[in-house]
């Protein structure tokens, strides 16, 4: 069995990627400085620098793929978590609280679900001041039963 999860960002939809990078590193120059000092000691920063440089090109496409070859991920894709993913794929939420309110669920439970999904690479949580902005990293799922 193979589970493929995919999202594609191009044009205006790459702004989410830029927001995530700005939230984590501040500016491109700061990130370049950091990578210049830390190099591959901080591999995620090196990859993010490459992404940020690519995003400066107008015709850049960012493709995110996740492949799992065991059904273990399904133990973490509860109906409520799938509902969260679908809501985030269809609409942007400025905060976890706004998402929780939209679902009619308790903030803590939604936060726990998002944290679990984040570990599987399915969502990103970007701090914006006092709020944490959730967004889906995947919008398409393909399950191949061999």
């Amino acid at each position, binding site marked *: 069995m193979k589970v493929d999860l995919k999202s594609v960002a191009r044009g205006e939809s790459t702004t989410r990627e830029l927001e995530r990078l700005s939230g984590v590193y501040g500016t491109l120059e700061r990130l370049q400085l950091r990578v210049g000092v830390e190099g*591959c000691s901080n*591999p995620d920063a090196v990859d993010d620098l490459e992404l940020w440089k690519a995003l400066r090109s107008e015709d850049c*496409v960012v493709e995110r793929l996740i*492949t799992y070859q065991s059904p*273990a991920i399904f133990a973490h894709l509860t109906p409520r978590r799938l509902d969260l993913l679908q809501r985030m*794929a269809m609409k942007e939420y400025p905060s976890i609280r706004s998402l929780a309110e939209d679902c009619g669920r308790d903030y803590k439970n939604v936060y726990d679900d998002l944290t679990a999904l984040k570990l599987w690479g399915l969502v990103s949580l970007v701090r914006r001041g006092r709020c944490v902005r959730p967004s889906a990293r995947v919008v*398409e799922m393909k399950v*191949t039963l061999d």
Partner: protein
Amino acid sequence: MVLHVNMAAAPGRKEAETDVTLKHTRRRVGIWRGEVLDAVTTEKDGRRTYYSYTYKVAAAGRWMPQVRWDNSDGEPHVDKYDETGTLKERAQTVEKRLDDVLGTVRLYRRELLTIPASEL
């Protein structure tokens, strides 16, 4: 048999295809429970200009890098990290492809940490 779910699908909506000259791809491949390979590539006009393949293990709520193959400094090399994710060893190597790295990672998994960087 393939089950395909598009969470953002809207009836009748079809994305317009555009010419892409710069494509940045991030792929996470599950290796085992708590083990993944993160593959990052940039292609310009169909030619790969950047790659990194990082084998990571889950620890303390984070994905900790253990072994990484990349060409970030212009020269392909392999880095090894200790159990805290601290860089500890580097060796020059040849350009790598995802299939090669995946094969190595699936074969050795956590035993990669015992293999010298020069042999990876």
